[in-house]
């Protein structure tokens, strides 16, 4: 079993968070904990142990994402520093979780469909999207209240992360069958699998909470390989480990491909 590395002795979000902020963190922590328990129960003796996890990777990942940013680059970033940093840290994961489950759904076998695995995967997909919506809504609302991206640079940081995630979605145009153009395979869909947050102004412009294909409003999908490139923080083909997983994931998909 692996270990978890953090950059502080007590890796809890600090910086004077409010009671409602603590409660949302509690909720997401609980639900992700339950997903671990669910998958372990469903897999039974086939469940893999936890791989080693390096949560200090947030710092180099944020530095990479925000190099050349319109906001001051993030140096020494920790999602545990304060609530806004937590939102950016969570942003790194949640939209990816949605796309990962969307990409996995059509791969489940017919036997898996009848035994309930597809509906379970769809149920977790929904929960990840609820989480992603919370994060995107909270960042957008804070930016609206602050009045500008300069006053609330976290919206810029989130978009820097989205750009990086998109560039790490390797092989977008040669993705698995059914995902032809990198998202849902729907005709006319774009090759980008990210939608940046926007800062709406006034009462007549739309927000950008939903991460979905701009022509048909259908959520994106990623292959298992594309998800690995993101969590390893590397577009390198053939990587066996890196980023959040210093010894790789415990998975037959652990080595990245084109």
């Amino acid at each position, binding site marked *: 079993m692996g270990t978890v590395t953090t950059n502080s002795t007590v890796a809890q979000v600090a910086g004077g968070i409010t009671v*409602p902020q603590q409660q*949302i963190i*509690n*909720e997401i922590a*609980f*639900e992700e904990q*339950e*997903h671990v328990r*669910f998958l372990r*129960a*469903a897999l*039974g003796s086939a469940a893999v142990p936890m791989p080693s996890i390096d949560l200090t990777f947030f710092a180099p990942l944020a530095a990479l994402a925000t190099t050349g940013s319109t906001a001051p680059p993030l140096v020494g970033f920790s999602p545990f520093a304060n609530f806004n940093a937590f939102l950016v840290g969570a942003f790194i994961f949640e939209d990816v979780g*949605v796309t990962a*489950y*969307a990409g996995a*759904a*059509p791969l489940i076998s017919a036997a898996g469909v*009848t*035994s*309930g695995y*597809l*509906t*379970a995967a*769809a*149920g*977790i997909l*929904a*929960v990840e*999207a*609820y*989480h992603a*919506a*919370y994060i995107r*809504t*909270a960042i957008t*609302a804070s930016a*609206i209240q602050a009045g500008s991206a300069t006053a609330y640079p976290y919206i810029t940081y989130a978009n820097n992360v989205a750009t990086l995630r998109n560039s790490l979605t390797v092989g977008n145009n040669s993705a698995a*069958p*059914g995902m032809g153009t990198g*998202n*849902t395979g*729907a*005709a006319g869909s774009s090759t980008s699998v990210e939608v940046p947050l926007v800062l*709406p*102004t006034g*009462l*007549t*412009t*739309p*927000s950008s*909470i*939903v*991460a*979905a294909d701009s*022509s*048909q*409003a*259908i*959520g994106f*999908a990623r292959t298992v390989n594309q998800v690995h490139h993101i969590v390893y923080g590397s577009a390198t083909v053939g990587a066996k480990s890196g980023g959040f997983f210093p010894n790789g994931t415990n998975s037959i998909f652990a080595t990245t491909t084109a």
Partner: protein
Amino acid sequence: MANLETQILDDIIVKGRRKMLTLGSAALAGLVFSSAKTAQAAVAYTDADILNFALNLEYLEANFYYLSAFGCTIDKPNAAAIAAGAPSAGIPITGSVGTAGTVTGGSKIPFATTQVASYAIETAIEEGKHVLFLQSALSTAAVAQPSINLGTSWQMLGSALTPSAPTFTPYTSEGNFLLGAYVFEDVGVTAYHGAASLLTVSGNLSAAAGILGVEAYHAGLVRTTINALDPTATSLVPVTNSISALRAALALQVTAASTYDPNPDDYGLATFQVSLAGAANVTATRIVDAAADNTSNFAVAAARNTSQVLNIVTGGGAYNTTTKTAISPATGVFFPVGMNAGPNGFK
């Protein structure tokens, strides 16, 4: 629908995961075998029937948001809608199945904040695109827009709430608008979720999974914003609890004759207690509408079958609780003369 086999199949789909987990792996092997047999015997509908069911719901949602955000229906976009990205020719409402019905009620929300206005506009445009996508995917099999009631339906729904809100309308304030949106979004999530296992074409499943994600983003957005507008949980939050309880009761009606899951699987925004890593209980928000009873549900969102969704959007019109039989077409509340569907379709 509602022949015995589809009913059984629906039942398995809805509670499959829970059954799987509560009965253990020995029972799981039997479940796989028996449900596979059922699936073979029950192919009375096609992917088109399922996508058309979704299209009826999207006509409803898209018109609600167009009226709320812009003050127009999807087929007759006004300048505000077109400026925000609505197709200038309007979204078609005719189809090869059924006659295009009209939309009654609904008017533009008196927006006061950038947050809620921008969310309403975004959602309206996205739901409109879902209508267009499903029409395109279904091509000549697409159903026309059914008759939709977005006016007095809200008072019917409000009257059924506990405590009763017989004068409720979503069109008078941002808070009420979010409550109206709350009625639809979590239902959309559960409907696409329930449909996923029924689709046979891989590309359709990919698209349905993608739309499921979008509906859940919308639901999360609505629930997050209601919490933000009602930080003391005294005005809007209690209504969300009432709406969730009503939805759960209506869904349970349909399956009351069977030993359906006693857990309602529908939760308002009241906070709840969770245990993290085995530590003492702490208080958590309820942005996610998913059961989390720590024994069998594992924070996996619920699915609903078509009968349950129909019974919710028709306010109990899909099931005769006296004779315990399905009513088809289901009529009432948002669909005064029922949905449009093909010969084997769900209505």
